[in-house]
């Protein structure tokens, strides 16, 4: 049974040779350890940020500021919102107006929203979604979609405003406000329950914005690649039987109206926001 090869292997496998072999495995592992963790994504972005800081520094104070910048994981600790947002590890420039023209991810945050919603108090993910604890682009942005923590993009971001702000505070004409009015206009409560009112012919919508993509029924025939919550809701509003025969009325909505309703749906979450972070007037949510 023992061929010359196995016999030779057996002769070779003496304890000293095996110890040496084990040592080689250790070395490979150590080398791989160093290489694997050598260049995290955020390090490159922060280096770029620091380089630009130094290049733009023109007085003693800003030179000192640039010199003090440390490349390290950065995070906003938000115990009140039960989260830690590490987005700023790559998006280092969001609060620095000098980076308005810098490339992403180090650019300044657009608009003036951060002046009221300071990152120290609110962080990032309460509005943007995604996975705040992650430190890689893919995991933080919830890619590839569909994922459990997708980021809200474009107009859908407005859904997050409704997590804290009551109906009476919605900016007139915003997607969220239009969606809120369409909900009444189409008479959705005839079949659906929302908070304490409405009917039970269709599913309760009170927490629909917290549902993940895999909690929606995609039917047996859908073969598309987009399985996001946003896509499901929009398709469903334009044609309730898009994925499976549904008893819901087809309102023949325009794309625009369907999307506005999606925004409103996304605002209906069960996220717990502590009172002191709520807007002064308080929500009209019951």
């Amino acid at each position, binding site marked *: 049974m023992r061929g010359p090869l196995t016999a030779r292997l057996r002769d070779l496998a*003496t*304890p*000293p040779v*095996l*110890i040496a*072999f*084990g*040592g*080689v*495995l*250790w070395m*490979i*592992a*150590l080398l*791989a*350890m160093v290489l*694997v*963790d050598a260049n995290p994504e955020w390090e490159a972005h922060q280096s770029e940020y620091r380089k630009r800081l130094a290049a733009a520094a023109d007085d003693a104070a800003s030179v000192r500021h640039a010199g003090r910048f440390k490349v390290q*994981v950065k*995070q906003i600790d938000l115990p009140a919102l*039960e989260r*830690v947002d*590490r987005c700023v590890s790559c998006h280092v420039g969001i609060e620095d107006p000098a980076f308005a023209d810098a490339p992403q991810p180090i650019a300044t945050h657009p608009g003036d929203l951060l002046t009221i919603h300071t990152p120290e108090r609110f962080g990032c993910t309460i509005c943007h979604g995604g*996975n705040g*604890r*992650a*430190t*890689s682009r893919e*995991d933080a942005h919830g890619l590839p979609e569909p994922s*459990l923590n997708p980021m809200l993009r474009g107009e859908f971001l407005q859904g997050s405003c409704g997590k804290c702000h009551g109906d009476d505070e919605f900016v007139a004409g915003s997607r969220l406000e239009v969606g809120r009015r369409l909900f009444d206009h189409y008479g959705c409560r005839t079949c659906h329950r929302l908070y304490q009112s409405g009917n039970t012919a269709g599913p309760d919508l009170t927490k629909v914005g917290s549902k*993940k993509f895999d*909690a929606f029924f995609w039917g047996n025939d859908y073969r598309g690649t987009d399985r996001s919550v946003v896509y499901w809701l929009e398709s469903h509003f334009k044609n309730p039987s898009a994925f499976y025969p549904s008893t819901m009325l087809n309102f023949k909505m325009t794309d625009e109206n369907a999307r506005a309703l999606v925004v409103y749906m996304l605002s209906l979450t069960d996220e717990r926001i502590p009172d002191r972070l709520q807007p002064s007037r308080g929500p009209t949510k019951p």
Partner: protein
Amino acid sequence: MSAHSLMESLRCSAIYRSIVRRGPADNDIDRSLAITSNVFLHLHPVKIRRHALRFTYTFGLGGITTLLFLILCVTGVLLMFYYVPSPERAYRSMQDLRYVVPYGTFLRNLHHWAAHAMIVTAALHMARVFYTGAFKGTRQFNWVVGVILFVLTLGFSFTGYLLPWDQLAFWAITVGTNMAAAVPLLGGMIRYALLGGNIVGANALLRFYVLHCAVLPALVFVFLAVHFWRVRKDGGISGPPLPAEVPEEGPPERLFATTPGRSYALVALPREAPAAVEESRKSPEDTVLTYPHLLVREAAAAMVVIGGLLLVALFLNAHLEEAANALKTPDPAKAPWYFLGLQEVVSWSTPFIGGVLVPGLMVLALLAIPYVRPNSVGVGVWFHPARRRAVIAFTIGLVLNVLLIVVGMFFRGHGWSLVWPWSN
């Protein structure tokens, strides 16, 4: 000064001597002292039978299982620095390990893969002991201790399974503890005691954590001590009866030059020494010194196993699913892999049969093995023909178990229906 003479003068220094209390191990007396004067090495006898060195006799499985357990203790303590056993924070600890703790993923992987490997090696070690008849004679009770250790090992893995607090953990433990609830009369109470309530929640997490990090380690250390002590008291590990004449193989390869010095002067035998010791006294030529022959082999096995584990832990990540959610039942919800055979049986029968009767009988059967035919026929020989029927029966049990686990792991899909592994 050359490196060699530096080592020499170090060895002769008063401090070094105060620690090791022996000369350089260039003679058999000092080699014996190397073992007897060291609290850890003293687990070993000074001399062992040459047969015990054969890799293909034990495959080093008991030793490798011990090594994995020690690795689990070390990595487990490191994980404890980061882990908080509460439903709010457990899953976040996992995320932090992954994203911000330096080499946190690697640390978790090491613990994860060593744990799964330990179950496999402990099971293989049990199979080795069975197939070589090493549970016979004076070793009957050590087999029982071994069975207890195996059950404790499963308990370790089962309690650890819940700690990441992700969907996989939550539902595996829900399925597992529901099986325990099928015990007649006491079932509900047992489950309630395990979970600290009726559902897998904060109390269950805390209980599993305490069992995993305090109770089970203490128990395993105690039973391991007994296990090793018994191996020593039974005259070292088993082997075939010595032939009347000393074999002509000659001494094993020498790793150190010998100078005269007889180790057996150190050994005093009790009047009624265990049989194996008597045997080895009859023909001292068949024994070799533990230092270096056994130690160098143990070092080799440890180097290779640790090296392999490091590589696996670097490239294979332990899963982390979404956070535990009691409202969202995965389909199918599977128990941990080593219980899938039982879950499979439950799926064709009742929770009582698959969850209580079958495992209960399995443990009882294992415990009974050394006491069914108490004789010493064929000890130390793999698949000895005198034990043909026992070997066949054990093999059928083993293969059946493995098959059911494989079916449960790869061939069960939605609603526990049979599927091909590649169909989803």
